[in-house]
C-alpha cells in the first residue's frame, strides 16, 4: 500500500511530524496533559504555537543526535516556545527547548517542549 505524501511545513502532517501536533499542540486540552502527567508521573509538554513543530524539525536537520538515543535531537529556541505540565500539578511556562524524536529516514516520530533541567538530565545519563 502506498504511503501518504510527507508535507513538510504542515505541522498537521502525520507522515512528516508524527504525533507532535496530535499530542502536544495548542489545541490539546490542558486538562488532558495534566491528567496524563499525574497518571503516569511524567511531565508533558505543550507548544505555544504549532509552527514551532516545523521549525524544530528544520533546526535539527544538520544536528548530531542528543544524549543517549540515536534518534534524539534538541532544538534550542532561546525564546519561549511552550510549557511543561508536571506530575505534582505545577506548570513551567516559557520553556525554550524542544526534544525531537526522529525516524531513520529523518521524518519525526514526535516532538515536544522540555525544561532546561530535563534536557540536562538527558545529557548527563
Amino acid at each position, binding site marked *: *500500500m502506498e504511503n*501518504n*505524501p*510527507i*508535507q513538510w511545513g*504542515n*505541522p*498537521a*502532517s*502525520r*507522515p*512528516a*511530524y508524527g*504525533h*507532535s*501536533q*496530535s*499530542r*502536544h*499542540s495548542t*489545541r490539546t*486540552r490542558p*486538562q*488532558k496533559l495534566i*491528567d*496524563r*502527567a499525574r497518571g*503516569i*508521573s*511524567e*511531565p*508533558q*509538554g505543550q507548544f505555544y504555537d504549532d509552527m514551532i513543530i516545523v521549525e524544530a524539525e528544520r533546526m535539527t536537520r544538520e544536528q548530531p543526535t542528543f*544524549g*543517549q*538515543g540515536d534518534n*534524539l535531537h534538541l532544538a534550542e529556541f532561546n525564546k519561549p516556545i511552550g510549557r511543561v505540565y508536571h506530575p505534582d500539578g505545577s506548570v513551567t511556562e516559557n520553556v525554550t527547548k524542544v*526534544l525531537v*524524536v526522529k525516524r531513520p529516514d529523518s521524518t519525526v*516520530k*514526535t516532538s*515536544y517542549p522540555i525544561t532546561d533541567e*530535563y534536557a540536562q*538530565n*538527558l545529557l548527563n*545519563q
Partner: protein
Amino acid sequence: MCNITFHIQHQEAATRWPFEEYGTDGITKLELALWKFAEERNRQWSIFINGLELPFEYEPDLTTIFNEIPEVLELLLKENEEPAILDFFEQGTSIVLSMKRKNDIIWVEFQKTPPLTGKRFDHLPEEPQPILVRDFYEAWFQFLDEILKMLTRQEHNLETDLSYIYYISRINKIREKFQLSF
C-alpha cells in the same frame, strides 16, 4: 514458565475526552479510526512478560506501535539477525522492545533512555527475557482481533477501506504462515 499475555483492561478513565481531529493530515482511515477509538475510550492495556508488567495506554502508546506490529510479526516468523523493534516513543513512555528469535524462543530486550523512559518501567531487567514463540503469536493475534473488531464496530465503513483491508490481509497471511510452521 515462559509466556506472554496481553490484558485489555476495561476500566475506563473517569474523564472521557471528546474526539477532536487535528494533526492527522496524511493518515489512513484505519489510523484515524484507531486514534478516535483510543482517545474516546481512554483504556489501558498491559503486556505481561514472565510476570513483568508493562503498563500502556491506548492513546498514545497503542497508536505509536500499531503500524509496526505486522512487520514485527513477519520478522519473527523465523530467526532474525536484525532485531524486530516496537518503539513506544511518546513522552513519558519511551521504551523500546527489541526482539530476536532463536529456535522457538523470542528474546525480548528492554531498551530504556533515561529520563525519557517512564519510571513505571524501572523494574524491567537489563537481561533479555525469553518468550515461547507460540505464546507470543497467539497473544498478539488475539489482541489484534479484539482491537480490529472494536474498530469496525465503531466505524461501519472501515471494512471496505483499503487501509483496513491491507492491514488485516497482512495479519491473516502471517497467521497462515505461523500455523503452517507448527
